[in-house]
């Protein structure tokens, strides 16, 4: 298995949108290296077993009819920042 380095960790932090303190980062790096080396034992499993997990029941759809959804006030009660009945966020689109 390939080496798990600080560069790997930085890439993963960017992908998962997570930041760590310097102290956390040291611990996270060494833990993940330890865990990944433990995972190498999976290489000992060799077989023709297919990877896709058969679901236990065939997918069931419920009838498609319109029902009331979560009321706006209920939804907004947890919003960190709101204005005019909407969630307020910084601009998503900058210069076009």
């Amino acid at each position, binding site marked *: 298995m390939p080496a798990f380095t600080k560069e790997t960790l930085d890439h993963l932090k960017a992908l998962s949108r997570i*930041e*760590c303190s310097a102290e956390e980062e040291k611990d996270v790096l060494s833990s993940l290296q330890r865990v990944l080396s433990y*995972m190498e*034992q*999976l290489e000992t499993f060799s077989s023709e*077993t297919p990877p896709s997990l058969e679901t*236990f029941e065939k997918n069931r759809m419920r009838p498609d009819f319109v029902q009331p959804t*979560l009321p706006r006030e209920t939804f907004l009660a947890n*919003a960190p920042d709101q204005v005019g009945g909407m*969630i307020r966020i910084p601009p998503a689109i900058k210069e076009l």
Partner: protein
Amino acid sequence: MKKPIHLLSATELHRAFLEKELSAVEIASHFLKRIEQYNPTLGAFLSVLEPRALKKAQELDQKRKTGQPLGKLAAVPIAIKDNMHIEGELTTCASRFLTNYRAPFSATAIRLLEEADALLLGKTNLDEFAMGSSNENSAFFPVSNPWDLKRTPGGSSGGSAAAVAARLSLIATGSDTGGSIRQPAGFSGVVGFKPTYGRVSRYGLVAFGSSLDQIGPFSTCVEDAALAMEVLGAPCPLDATSLSFPPEPYPLSKTMEPITIGVPFHFLEGLKPEIRKNFDAALDTFRSLGAKIIEVDLDVLRLSIATYYILATAEASTNLARFDGIRFGVRAKEAKTLEEIYVQSRGAGFGREVKKRILLGTYVLSAGYKDAYYKKAQQVRNGIIQAFDTAFEACDALVLPVSPSSAFIRGSIHDPIEMYLQDIFTVPANLAGLPAISVPSGFDPEGLPLGIQIYGPRLADVSVLKYAFAYEQATSHTQVPPLYQGDPA
């Protein structure tokens, strides 16, 4: 002298309520007082739902007085793990991220419990987002084991386990993704049951590993776990993975028909002597109940932890992407751009173990590594399912220990793999979707609880409960920790 209310079983308490020996308000007040007295040292509850519980209790007393029908769990006190939504109440998942989040809806499991007239006492502590085996990962405070306050009660449902063990509630809900009901039940000396995958709706349970998670009950006896399952195990149109058919009834009896029990002796080599001794004694009990014990080959389970921690973290990395600081939860105040909101809110909101698992899950799914890790783990998972299918052709149930040790001292495990290996006997049930129960099986030389685990084939929930009941009735290992036997001062 009459037995104190908290030493009754839920079934006995429910009957006492129906027969007008106790009022619901009396019951609710009794347990709320115990929580007030004992929770500061235990840390089992994150929030107490006193007004809600007393209001429900008053309604129940009124319903009883006017002869209205009462639900199966009427006046039974139940604690709810704080990763399950109760409408209007805080649902923190023991995370800084959700310190201010109030549930906009109730989970199906909660709705079913309330319709059955249960008294919901409060939200219990857990490892953050259900990630842990010791309840040391709560963002707020750890939980102590009622048998020894220096030790962990197990995790992730440590609060629920401790609450029931200390009789602050008679039943509690937990969630089990890799053992998070069964392992703390074993550490705390109570019953913990994980149903077949899909038996209990996950709607309203904050998702960790969607193909692994199941809600289940903690209780002081198997009869109460069966009672809870009668209520919880209903089909749900809001969870596409929930089973479409209702459960069979749960008739329990002290005698057990002669069954064959499979034990993976080879896989169990290397057990600590005190665990092995307790395990062997449990097998003798099953023999005395007429069971035949055979050896089964489950050596592939040596790969369970590696398989589990790839699949569970992969699913968790996806499930926790919703915590972005935009629509709910704690948003980082300093953030000026959208990107900063995501990165800073998640950076500040998630604890270290949660970050580790999200990062690991991201890695095993990322381009270039997905085949080596995720795809491989899915193959091994299928291999594990097939090994169980083969084993169950030769036996009716499997018996294993719950954990490789009794409850450990808080702060004593630093190596992540040593912590993950706490779940070696529990994760296989999640990987294969099997029903499994932890039942008290005695104590180790230091006086700490031990548990025995029974696995059944998929959909054999009733059988697992039946075998567990027969074992329990033949042994009477369940005790109340000395500190919690009496009423509060």
